[in-house]
């Protein structure tokens, strides 16, 4: 409940700033001014560029590792009751994680420049 109230306040505050910035200035739109920025030239072709495959690979790696971190988080509440079984279980998990990283590294998935 309080979270929603805080969220609403944050939304109202930010929208207020956006609305102020929207209606306070006077405008004079023209064609040249509203064309996308390209160092003073007319845009040559569409800006929906194909991008490097490396970025896609980073996103995939992020997905895997972030998921694994999310799976590691329950260790923390679990650590307060039975700690002796914690080490072998989490070690197995960490070894799999590290082996995945090593495999990715060895296959060259982490190399940015050839």
């Amino acid at each position: 409940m309080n979270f929603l109230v805080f969220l609403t306040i944050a939304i109202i505050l930010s929208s207020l700033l956006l609305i102020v910035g929207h209606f306070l200035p006077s405008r004079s739109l023209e064609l040249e001014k509203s064309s996308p920025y390209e160092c003073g030239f007319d845009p040559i072709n569409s800006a929906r560029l194909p991008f490097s495959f490396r970025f896609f690979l980073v996103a995939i790696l992020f997905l895997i590792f972030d998921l694994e971190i999310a799976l590691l988080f329950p260790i923390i509440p679990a650590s307060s009751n039975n700690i002796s079984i914690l080490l072998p279980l989490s070690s197995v998990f960490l070894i799999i994680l590290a082996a995945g990283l090593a495999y990715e590294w060895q296959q060259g998935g982490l190399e940015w420049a050839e």
Partner: protein
Amino acid sequence: MDILFFIIQALAFLVPILISVAFLTLVERKVLGYMQFRKGPNVVGPYGLLQPFADALKLFVKETLKPSTASPYLFFFSPLLFLILALVLWSLIPIPQPTLNVNLSLLLVLGVSSLAVYALLGSGWASNSKYSLLGGIRAVAQTISYEISMGLILLSILIWTGSFSLKEITLSQQNCWMLLPHLPLLFMWLISTLAETNRAPFDLTEGESELVSGYNVEYAGGPFALFFIAEYANIIFMNVLSIIIFMGGGSPFSTIPVIASLIISTKAIALVFFFLWVRASYPRFRYDQLMHLTWKNYLPLSLGLFSLTLSILVITNSSPFIL
């Protein structure tokens, strides 16, 4: 009545944050100025103290425009989302009491701060300009890469404090700050926060020589001001978070209300100054060096340190700090 009280409390917390963001811009220009043997802004008001308000006024009366090819809704929604997320994050910070009492506050902080990626991606893509698209992609790749190392660094800390609540993390450091046993983690964490907030040696998203300004190149006036405020609010937030996690929050007097807040702010100011100092000292990284640093250095190292801290906990047969 309770809700009214809460609204007043939240506003009394959020408005000073916006003001502190304004003053951070002044501090940055002053510190950078003096580090380069200049004076920085000193004309508007005494010692240039009114400069940030003049800047804000200027930004909000500047003409804002949308490029003709940009996607209309996403273009204006992204800066809004960025600022909303930056403000919501602050509700969870205990100085020394959080505005929102959440049990798993650090988890919520991680989740909400990950959402900021959508704002970067949205603004970069919706501007429909080559520079902003490239800047947006770079920003997203950098932010998500460093999020992983930050998550693993946090795991090592959390396994010793035994709680996700930022307040309990502060309380667990009453006798010993986390920076003493976890010094290597502290260095990695500080560098990761620099990269996460796109600050100086890692500001590849706005590499002026190649990308002009990065994902916000098409924004002018009000929406640009939103990005600016959100970025600086995130910088202060990250520093306060580092204080709470590694340097014990209001540690020597964390139970005395006002003094604890003052101590937290003083420590945070010192860290913000460190951010500015780094900006004045170091040249920009190359993008492959940036990725090399997080994927090949921090990720394996933080994995290893996590197993080490876990093993220490098990070998000494000590349970984590429990209130």
